[in-house]
Structures are given as C-alpha cells and as structure tokens.
C-alpha cells in the first residue's frame, strides 16, 4: 500500500477498541489508517492479564460471532482457560482466560500488519480537523496531516493522562508511557464535552520472589474450549495456574497507617472511578471491618517473570505498597518490579455519543473504548467493533447498525452506554441484561452470526460452517418436537425407571426434555431415535439441551421482547408533521423526547421517560403501520 494523505476511515489508538475498529473497517473493504503513539504497545493490556467472566466473556463470544478479532486472539494466546459459574446455570456460565500479555500483543500486531486495506502508522495526533461541522482529518505533532471521512478515536486512558502516586503527580499514560496531549484542547474547541475519570493498577512482582506454598493454587480447565466458535471444543493442555492468598489484620493495619498518603485521602485525583474494581485503600475505607480480601496472583505471560496482584490495586506511594505486601502470606518477600499507580484521564462526557458510537456534535467522528466511560478490554473491543462497522455503514450510506439489547450483550452495552450518566465507568455484567436467559454463551452464533455475515464481516466459508452447525441442531430440535411419546405402559415404566413422573397424555420430545431430570440422550432413547442418528458431540448436546430447557422462559418474555425490538428499529429524532396524529395522543414529555436528538431510538426514550404500558401500546400500534 502506498502512502497517501486521504483515508476514508482513520482510527486513532491501537488498544482493544482501536484494533477491532480498524480491522472491521478494513475487512469491510475500506482503506483504513491506524495511528498509534507506539507500535510496540499495540493491543497492550496495561492492567489485569485476564479476559472474560460473566458478561465480559459473553461479549468476547459475541465479538467472535459477529466477526471481530478478540475471541480469536485470546484463544491463541491464553495461558489458562476456565469455566466460571458452571453450576449456576448456562445463562451466567462464562469462560475466563488468563492471557499471555506479550503473546496477545504480538499476535494482534501481526493480524493488523497482515490485514488488507489496513495501514498502521506510529504518530501522536494533536488535532482534529473539521470542515462544515463534519470531521475532515487529523494533524500529528510532526505537522503531518491526513484527511478522512470518518474518524474513530480510541484513546483509552491516554488523553491528557496524569499518573498519581501518593502525593506525586506527573503527566503520563499507562505504564508511564507518554500521555496524549493537545488533542483534548482540539476536541473542546470543536464543542466536544469531556470529563475526568480515574482508575488504578496494582504492583507487579518478581515471580521467583513469592512463596506459593502459602497460597491456594487455582488451575484452569483443560476442556473449556475457546471463545471463538471454531475453537469451541479445543483442548488447552498446557496451562499455568494462578494463586490465591488473602489480606489479614496486619494488611488492614498497614493500609490504614498509610491512608494519609492515599490519593483518595489527599484528594489530588478525581473521585470518579470504577466502583466494581476499587483500590485496596478504597476497600479499607469503605469496608473498615472487613479483614480478609482476596488477592489473586496471576501470571503476566508464559515467559514473563512478572506477576500481577489482582485485588491490590492502589495509587499509594511505593513505601506503602511495600509495607502492605510484607503482610500478605506468600508475598512477604515479594520484589516489586513495577509499582501500582493511579491514572486520571479525559473521557467523553455522558450523553455525547450515539449507539453507533458517533459523536452527537461532530458528524463522522466516533469514539470507542475507555474514552467512552467504560472499563475493561472486552467492553472496549465490543465498542471498537460497533464503531468500525458504523463508520463504514455511514461511509457507504447504509443504515446504522446496532444489535438489539434483546439479543446480545453488545446491544445491552451500546444501549446502556449511550445513556450512561453516572460518576463511574460502566462495566458489563449479566445483571445489566434483563433478557440474559436468552443471551447465553452457547447461543452467540444463533443470535449474531447472520447479522455479521450480512454486514460482511463473516466470510462465506465461515458462515456456511456455522449455518450447517445451526441447522444440525435445529433439525434435531424439530425431530424432538415432532416425535411423540404415548402414555403406553412400557413407556410409563421407562419414565419411572429414569426417575421422572409418568405422562398423562402423549408428550413430544421437547416437552420431555424440559423436565430438569431428563437429558437429551435419555429422551432420544425414550423416543426410539436410531442409535446412529443420535448427536454424539457433548458440546452440541449441551447447546441443544440448553436451548430447549430455556424455551419456557423465552416464551414468557416474547411479547416484551418483540415490542422492544420494534421500538429499537425506530430511529430518533422523528420529524413529525404538524398534522401527525401522534401530536394529539402522546403526552408532551414523550413528544418532545421523540423529536429531540437526545435518544437514538424509540425504546431509549420510552425507557428513559418510564412510559406507561398504555402509551407503549399506542406507539406500537402506530409504528407497526407501514407509514406514519
């Protein structure tokens, strides 16, 4: 590819959001430029070395199903894979990977460099260029300028970043890299509102300096499979364990002793930080009676000599960090390689971007990732993917794209985030997803792959394979649905022998399988399915069983889901004619909401205004007509 000063899409930042955005754009056939401050820190994980868990793991599965990259990269570089919540139900069950930070970076960097249509360039962007209220390009500190039609800014925690360690502060990005300076001023100049957020990271210690005999070993699961559909049954045989240790009274004492040096206490940092990931000083301040806090000791990579101390996040000064470590079993002699620190950075103010990640003020300007007020690699990647897709959709004059919150965690994320207005970053969890029983790990492809294919992110071949697999399950499900067990004597005996109740009338296979005590194999045998036609693959069987066992619940929510889905397709603002009948029947509050640019779709307005069922019914009736 030849250097050029125009790229239809430019992405600033090569973190997890930037990588997905750039890859999506390039894979959709658009010439894309990715500008990063340091090519050697592409896809850096500046904080914890893990990816996944409930909600987050669901996002990674969905990124894979929709045609993003993170799932693939995690699978290839994980040093540990583990199922969480296995006993609590398939809807909250999720994988969690311990990632090899170095390998992850290397793998993702290679993917970027070998991607057609994508050019990576090192540079420090200090200015955005605007023409007639629309994005027009960027300028670098070197004076170089590039023009573009769409710009995606994924600045993570770099924007005007300040590192805080005790009472000391200095400008600096993650791991003491350079902060991105100058760009904020340019954004503000063009009307973008910003806010300050903070986060922190724990100290990293030398592997050989800990005593694992004083800790609990936490191994992974060999048979967990990977996040990407193609890796679903992969075996991870060479895993590295994590270790668990706990704080004690001495730790609490040490923290309390040094509290006067905590940035929280000194108030030399904003208080707007992640409450789901508090620093050890915040934990002790908020829960002063709690003595034992978990500390997970996690490898930073297979070949790395560094260990990450999950749970000991802090911006307290070096001496405090040393004193705290000395109290923790197994870490008494730990050698600190990098001290923990807090970081404060610029983020986009709430309500400033749409579900497409496009800015409400500047057309063609998108933001994704931590700059949008999220925390976590997974949330960043999901936004990057959505921003990349939408930049291209807009470029091609196609409809904007966002998945429905009724059918994906990504949908929940973009919907929640565009309205998120709290003094803390957003983190996805199953609790945010009211339809979580439908948004299971096992059903990601059933929910999203068709959309990914239609957008152009899934290759024909990949889609064909996934479709064939879906068809196989669907066929088996209809077979169960259409085969009936009669209440004949021998059948009743067989049922009783399986520890389940007799049937009163003929019952089909799906209904039988909805009984918690019956599994697929037992049901198929009751129905006399030929032995050679039975599903054999345990993953296939799990998916089928889960699909059927959750049907009753999905059925109950069907009506609500269909209204929400309909309302999500009605983009706001609506230009209502003077004579529109809606003007007569809706309350003034709802009328002004649907004609303003505050919400992206009708569902957002309804939810925000707590619209009553009666008005929802009216709206549904109105909008289910073809023209209005």
């Amino acid at each position: 590819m030849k250097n050029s000063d125009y790229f239809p899409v430019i992405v600033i930042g090569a973190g997890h959001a930037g990588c997905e955005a750039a890859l999506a754009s390039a894979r959709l056939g658009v010439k894309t430029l990715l500008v990063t401050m340091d090519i050697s820190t592409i896809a850096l994980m500046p904080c914890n070395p893990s990816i996944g868990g409930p909600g987050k793991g669901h996002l990674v599965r969905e990124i894979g199903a929709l045609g993003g990259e993170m799932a693939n990269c995690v699978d290839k570089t994980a040093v540990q894979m583990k199922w969480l919540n296995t006993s609590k139900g398939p809807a909250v069950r999720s994988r969690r990977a311990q990632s090899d930070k170095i390998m992850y970076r290397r793998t993702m960097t290679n993917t970027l460099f070998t991607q057609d249509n994508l050019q990576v360039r090192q540079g420090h962007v200090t200015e955005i260029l605007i023409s007639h209220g629309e994005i027009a390009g960027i300028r670098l500190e070197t004076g170089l300028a590039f023009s573009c039609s769409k710009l995606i800014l994924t600045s993570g925690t770099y924007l005007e970043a300040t590192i805080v360690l005790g009472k000391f502060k200095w400008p600096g990005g993650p791991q003491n890299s350079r902060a991105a300076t100058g760009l904020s001023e340019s954004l503000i100049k063009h009307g973008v509102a910003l806010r300050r957020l903070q986060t922190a990271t724990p100290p990293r210690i030398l592997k050989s300096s800990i005593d694992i005999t004083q800790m609990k070993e936490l191994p992974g699961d060999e048979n967990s499979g990977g996040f990407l559909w193609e890796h679903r049954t992969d075996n991870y045989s060479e895993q590295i364990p994590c270790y668990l240790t706990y704080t004690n009274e001495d730790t609490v004492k040490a923290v309390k002793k040094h509290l006067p040096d905590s940035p929280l206490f000194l108030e030399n940092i904003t208080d707007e930080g992640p409450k789901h990931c508090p620093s050890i000083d915040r934990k002790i301040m908020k829960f002063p009676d709690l003595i034992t806090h978990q500390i997970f000791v996690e490898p930073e990579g297979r070949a790395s000599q560094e260990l990450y101390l999950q749970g000991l996040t802090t911006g307290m000064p070096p001496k405090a960090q040393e004193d705290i470590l000395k109290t923790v079993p197994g870490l008494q002699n730990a050698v600190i390689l990098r001290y923990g620190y807090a970081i404060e950075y610029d983020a986009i103010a709430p309500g400033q971007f749409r579900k497409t990640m496009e800015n409400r003020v500047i057309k063609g300007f998108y933001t994704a990732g931590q700059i949008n007020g999220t925390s976590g690699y997974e949330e960043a990647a999901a936004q990057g993917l959505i921003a990349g897709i939408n930049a291209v959709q807009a470029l091609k004059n196609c409809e904007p794209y966002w998945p429905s919150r009724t059918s994906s965690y990504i949908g929940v994320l973009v919907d929640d985030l565009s309205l998120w207005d709290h003094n803390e970053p957003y983190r996805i969890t199953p609790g945010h997803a009211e339809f979580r029983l439908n948004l299971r790990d096992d059903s990601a492809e059933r929910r999203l792959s068709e959309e990914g294919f239609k957008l152009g992110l899934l290759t024909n071949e990949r889609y064909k394979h996934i479709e064939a697999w879906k068809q196989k399950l669907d066929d088996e499900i209809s077979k169960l649905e259409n085969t009936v067990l009669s209440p004949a004597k021998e059948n009743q005996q067989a049922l009783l022998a399986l520890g389940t109740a007799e049937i009163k009338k003929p019952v089909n296979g799906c209904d039988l399988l909805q009984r918690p005590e019956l599994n697929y194999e037992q049901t198929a045998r009751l129905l006399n399915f030929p032995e050679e036609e039975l599903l054999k693959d345990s993953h296939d069987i799990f998916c089928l069983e889960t699909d059927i066992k959750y049907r009753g619940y999905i059925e109950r929510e069907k009506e609500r889901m269909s209204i929400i889905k309909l309302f999500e397709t009605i983009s706001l603002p609506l230009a209502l004619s003077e004579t529109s009948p809606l003007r007569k029947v809706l309350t003034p509050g709802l009328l002004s909401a649907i004609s303003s640019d505050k919400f992206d779709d009708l569902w957002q307005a309804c939810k925000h205004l707590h619209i009553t069922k009666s008005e929802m019914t009216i709206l549904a009736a109105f909008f289910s007509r073809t023209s209005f």
Partner: protein
Amino acid sequence: MRKMFDNYSDTVAALSTPPGKAALGLIRVSGPETFKVLEKIFKYEGKRPFPRSFSSFFGYIVEFETGKKLDQVILFTYEAPNSYTGEDMAEISLHGNPTIIASVLSELFNHGVRQAEAGEFTKRAFLNGKMDLLEVEALSQLLNAPTKAQASMALNQLEGLPSALINKLREKLVEQLVQLDASLNFPEEDIESLDEKLLAHALSETLDELQLFKRNSQNGSLVSGGLSIVLAGAPNSGKSSLLNALLNKERAIVTDIPGTTRDLIEENFQIRNIPVRLTDTAGIRKTENLVESIGVDRAKAGIENAFMILALFDSSEPFSAEDSDLMNLLESFNKPFLCLLTKSDLPFKIGEEPFKNHKTIKISSQTGHGLLELKDTLYDFLKEKGLSELENMIVLGAKQTASLNKAVYLLERLLESMAKGIYQDMISIDLEEIVRELGKITGQTVDFNSLDLIFERFCIGK
C-alpha cells in the same frame, strides 16, 4: 377500517361512570381478550350465543375461583370493528356500590385485563380509525388536563402500616436476590453462593405472610381503611337513623318501609382518633324479593368481614322472631358485638330478659340519648382490642390486588420449580419479577436493579 392492534394490543378495563356513590356503575372492557375473560366470569341463563354484536345479556359476574356471585349485571357486547374503540368491547352495567365495582374490576384484572388509563378508550378509538382528528383534538385537552380520575388514582398509593409490611417482605427478598445476583455476577469474589434450601425457606415464609396479608386485605376495596363496624338488625330497627345520627347528616335513605337499605352503605368515621368504617346493612330477614335478597346475602358477608357488630333492637316493640334470628346469628359468628336498644324515646316493650348475657346500651337517634355512652364504650373497646387489628388491616386498590395476586402466583410457581430443580440464573429472573411486583403494591419504582445494592453491600474487587 385500519386494524393495528393485531400484535400488540392488550385488554383494558375501567369504570366509566364518575367514581363515588351512584345507583349504577358502568365498567367498560376493550381489547382482544374481552370475551374470553367474560366467558369465565359472566354467567347467564338461556341459550343465546355469547357474545353477539349489539346485544345485551342479563346475568351475574362471579368470582372465577369460587363461583361466588359478585353482582347482578346487564352486559352489553360489541364485536370488533363495530364498537366505540373498534376492538371487541363490553360494557358491564352494575350496582354503583364502590365495593362491588372494585371487586368486579379486580376479577377482570385477575384474568390479565389491565386498568385503562385516562383517555385510553378514546385513544384506541382514534387509532382504530373510529374518530377523526377534530374529535381527537377536542378530546386531547381533556386528556392532558389533570382529571378527577387521575386524582383518584392517588388512592392507589398505599400508605402507612400495610405499606411498611409489604416493604418488609420485599426487603427480605431483595436481600436474597442481592446475595444471589452478587454470586452470579461476580463468581470469583469471596461471596457465599446461595443456599437454595434457605432461599426456599425464606420464599415459603414470604408466601405465607403474603397469603395472610391477602386474607387481611379487604380484597378490591377502593375505600380507605378503618376498622369495619357493621350495623345489624331487623328491618326498621333504626340502623340508618343511627348512622345518620353518628355522622350528623342525612346519609342513608330513611323511610318506614322495611328493606329500604338494600346495599351496604359505608361511611368513614373516627371515634376520637381511631378510624372506623361504619357499614349499614340491609335488614336481615327472610325475603322473596330477589334484589333485596342479594342485599341480605351481602349483609351477612359484611358481618363476616367485620371487626365488630353493633346489633340494633327496636325497644319499642316486643322481642320478635327476627330479633331472635339475629341474636342466634350473632352468637354463631363469634365476633364481638354490642346490643343497642333503639328508640329509647318510645315506651320500652322489648324486655331485659333476651339480653341478660350481653352488654346493652339504650339509645335514641331522635333525641341523642345514649349516643355519648355508645361512643365512649366503642372507644374503650377499640382502644383495647382494635389497635393491633388496625395494624393488620389492609385496604388495597384493584391494581394492587392484582399485583399481590401475581406475586403470590409467582412465588408459588418459583417454589414449585425450585422443588423440581432449576438453575440459579432462572431463580434470579423469577425473584426479580416478584420483587418488582411487590414494589408495585407499595407504589415504588418498578425499575429495580440489584447491581446498585451489590456494590453497596459487597466489596467487589476482582
């Protein structure tokens, strides 16, 4: 005719006559489920097919579960699209007593019908092409103005002790839900996972309490609370006159014709600072008159639900067979009662003998004789026995009754599925719905998310 409600419409009902006391009430029901619901709770004689467009049926609204007659009604049916709203529609013409109206509405709500909002019938009519813009415009000002109907919806805000009780039950479940959701959302935190046996225990305890609450609640009563005191006595024993004398106003229609008071007439009233609800009943006597006999049945039911009874005996007449029936009835009910020997301004003919085992007060509504003694006696009695009862006394609106019933149903269903074995992710969804439903009873926000509470209560740190 544009028909747009195919997929989304639900069925709604509302009282269309102004709230308050009136001889007749009209409840409108509109939506696709109208006739399906009415087939369950409307019973009529004869073989005419039901429903039929522009037809009227004479029959009863019954309580579906027990078959108990709630009221005698005339039902008009209109089939879509030939109705005011353009949907399947029915109008129930019934007696104007608020208690009856509320119980009929409540029965409809129990079958999935929703309370219509102000102006909703008109909106539906418009959307189904039954009205043009000008008509709607004329109506829209009315719709957007705060109406009496909206003001009366404030009645549905539950206050005081019952609200505290429901909140307490809800809090208990929230506690469990937060624990459960914390362990589901943050599996790697040091959070005890849910003990399903403990949860099941808590759920069935809650269920018991809710069912008790349900029994205590005056199902479907729209009127506000107070201890129910029923006036009972033979026809023309002076019940209405006493009621009027106590309230100092002409309330019940007072005539010399026995059986004038055919409905329950209720009045809220305070004895010193204790709220009571005085109910005047139809005279209890054997009757051939159909309408009156409904009133008599209702009076008996009123006594069953009463906290205490004031039994009236006309002291100017000898102790009659009806008086004797009443005495037997009272003794059989095992409820506290006080014998009032009325018309003390007239010659005393009834005799002391029949009352030798009971407390009596001689009164005259005409002269006011004995009324002060009556109030003092009532106050002492209520203060001693009634206050704790008052705390248990719950008056629910129809919507709240529907939520209460739904919560009970959901709890039963959840306990049943837990016994069979379901996943905790499903328990979480069900429990959340129960908490939401309970919140509706006390009028709290329906948006409930346990995440906020999780961060308050647990030190989430991974």
